Structure formats: C-alpha cells, structure tokens
C-alpha cells in the first residue's frame, strides 16, 4: 500500500476536482491519497465526488488549526 499526498488548497474549481481525480486514477487497489483541502465548496464536494465514483473516504480531519482539512481516500 502506498500513500500519495496532494495539496489542492491553492486550486479553484474545476481544478480541485481535476487534480484529485487524476491522482486517484493513478492509485492501485489498496493505495491511499491524502488530499489537503480548503473549507467550503471543495471540502463539501471533493470527498462526495470521490465517494460517488466508488472510492472509500476513510477520514476527514482538520489540520493547520482547522483552516484546511486532510481527506484520506482509498481505492478499493
């Protein structure tokens, strides 16, 4: 199992989704992606979109004094 990190806090729509999706596509089964996400629209929708596409969202936890969130996504 490998863990890839991705920071999309500087990105805007639609690149928040695009970068996450392209990173998820590179995962092998059991691999994880740790995405650093800004609050608001990206945090609400990036994990939701991953879930809808069959990925497992294992954790959503605040970091950096709760400014950003770390979302852990696994490819089943």
């Amino acid at each position, binding site marked *: 199992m490998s863990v890839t990190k991705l920071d999309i806090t*500087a*990105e*805007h*729509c*639609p*690149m928040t*989704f*695009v970068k*996450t*999706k*392209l990173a998820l596509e590179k995962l092998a089964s059991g691999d994880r992606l740790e995405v650093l996400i800004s609050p608001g629209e990206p945090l609400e*929708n990036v994990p939701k*979109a991953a879930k*809808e*596409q069959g990925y497992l969202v294992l954790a959503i936890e605040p970091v950096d004094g709760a400014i950003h969130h770390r979302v852990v996504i696994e490819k089943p």
Partner: protein
Amino acid sequence: MAQKKLSIVSFSGDFDRVIAVFTLATGAAATGYEVNLFFTFWGLNAIKLKQGRTALGKGFLARFFNLLLGGFRKLPLSRLNFFGASPKLMTHMMKKNKVATLAELVEAAKQLKVNFYACEMAMVILGIGKSDLIPEVKEVLGVSKFLENSEGGQVLFI
C-alpha cells in the same frame, strides 16, 4: 446505476465561451461523468491542429475564412476583444489568480478522456478535414450520431 453524462455543443469560437465549455467538461469528467464535446462552426477553431492563423481548406473562400478565423491561440474574447489583446490579458489574470488557463483546461480534458467530436457539415463548409484537427478528435459526425451519443444525459449549447 448508469454513468451520468454531459454533452456540450461547442458552437462559439469565443475565448470566454470556450473556457465555459472546458470548465464544465473537466469538472464533470472529474466527478465521474461521461463527457461528449461536439465542436461545430466557430467552435472548430478551438480544436484545429494549427493553433495560429493558417489558410486551411481548398478554394479561396475557405482559405480566406480559415486564415481570418485562426486556431486555438487566436480565439477572440466575446466582448472587449481589443484586436486580440484581451485574451492574453485574461490569461495573465487567470494565472495571477491561480485559476486554470484555457490551455490547462484543455490538457486536463484530454487527460480525463473527455470525448471530442467534430461536426461533419461545418467541416465541409469550412473545407477542414479530420487531419486538420487535433488527434484527440475521436470522430467526425452529424446530428443523428450526436443525438445518439447524448441520449439519456444533459445537453448544453455554448
């Protein structure tokens, strides 16, 4: 559940409208949609292989039109174009504000395997062949095939 689908008719060759096409296309593709882009009329300028001004086609009028229309790098802004200066300024503003540029969106669309189609009829009028378009164009087709491809999904005309 069947895969969600978005089909967009990209009619306008305006820089800002083409941005709208590729923003929706990449956003939808990244969130699990099947995306079909159908380029017709001025929209074809965005997917010409030669990105500058080239006299494509046979016959004086076709060559004249294609030369004036230009390709991807010559798309005009729908308002306040200022003889082509504005798209460059807009790209600068997009970069400055860390918003994806049109070129980045098109690249993302290719990576996300968005389907590119070109309109047969408009290509005949403008004297453009499939080899004049970017290799990502899957097929040259007409209305009936577009309707078939877009059936059961959402359709937009931009």
